[in-house]
């Protein structure tokens, strides 16, 4: 029962914060709501037995990435977004198309595994830093090393783009 209670609380928080991200007019409010989504997702990862991933979620997403976002919002002094008229396509088909996407996704995901056992906290303990690190440095060593090249390129690209003076 405790599992279901925790899931209900943090799933509700995540969905409400996600809706808030979309509805808020000011980017800084959206960013703070997104921090709420990421923190509640970290709790859900813990419930699923992903200790390492939950901590990485807090540190990398809620910490580093969102600080970067808030830095840029403050640097650019981004204000309330200006609303304009939308195209008639978006007005008429937008919401039904999204609900259709949700329906298809939900139906497929729910029906795919009809006999899946209920997830209990403590069933799966393979998500510790030790297990993840072992898999990362043995089976997935090559992708891990390629990742470092990707990050190096991203750093160089960010520096070059931020310094560039265009006409």
């Amino acid at each position, binding site marked *: 029962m405790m599992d279901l209670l925790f899931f209900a609380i943090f799933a509700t928080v995540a969905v409400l914060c996600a*809706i808030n*991200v*979309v509805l808020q007019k000011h980017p800084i409010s959206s960013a703070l709501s997104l921090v709420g989504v990421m923190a509640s997702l970290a709790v859900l990862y813990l419930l699923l037995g992903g200790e390492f991933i939950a901590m990485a979620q807090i540190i990398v997403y809620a910490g580093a990435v969102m600080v970067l976002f808030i830095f840029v919002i403050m640097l650019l002094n981004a204000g309330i977004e200006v609303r304009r008229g939308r195209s008639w396509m978006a007005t008429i088909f937008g919401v039904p198309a999204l609900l259709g996407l949700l329906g298809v996704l939900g139906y497929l995901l729910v029906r795919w595994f009809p006999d899946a056992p209920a997830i209990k906290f403590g069933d799966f303990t393979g998500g510790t830093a030790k297990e*993840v690190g072992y*898999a990362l440095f043995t089976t*997935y060593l090559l*992708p891990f090393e390629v990742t470092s090249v990707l990050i190096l390129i991203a750093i160089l*690209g960010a520096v070059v783009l931020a310094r*560039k003076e265009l006409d």
Partner: protein
Amino acid sequence: MPPIPNGVPMSFYLGLSALLFVIGVAGFVLRRNIITVFMCIELMLNAVNLSFVTFANYHKQVAGHIFTFFVMVVAAAEAAVGLAIILTVFKNRTTLNIDEVDSLKN
């Protein structure tokens, strides 16, 4: 009405993931501020990560966590480059509205 199981059914996690993804798509399509659009992309990535971790639990394998780890790494790199692009766009055009950045349109 089936009895309430001890634990959380896996479909709840997958349904939550689908819901968060659709909210992210809605924001991506409807919002006009380039920074908010970017945040909605992060929201979609997070929704997919939840699915990965759920399936890792279902299969009792650590591979799903490794995938989530790589998604996080790529998202961090993407955020760094994307925000640098946003800075450059703002420097050149002094606007954050994606409707006004349309020089590829004509």
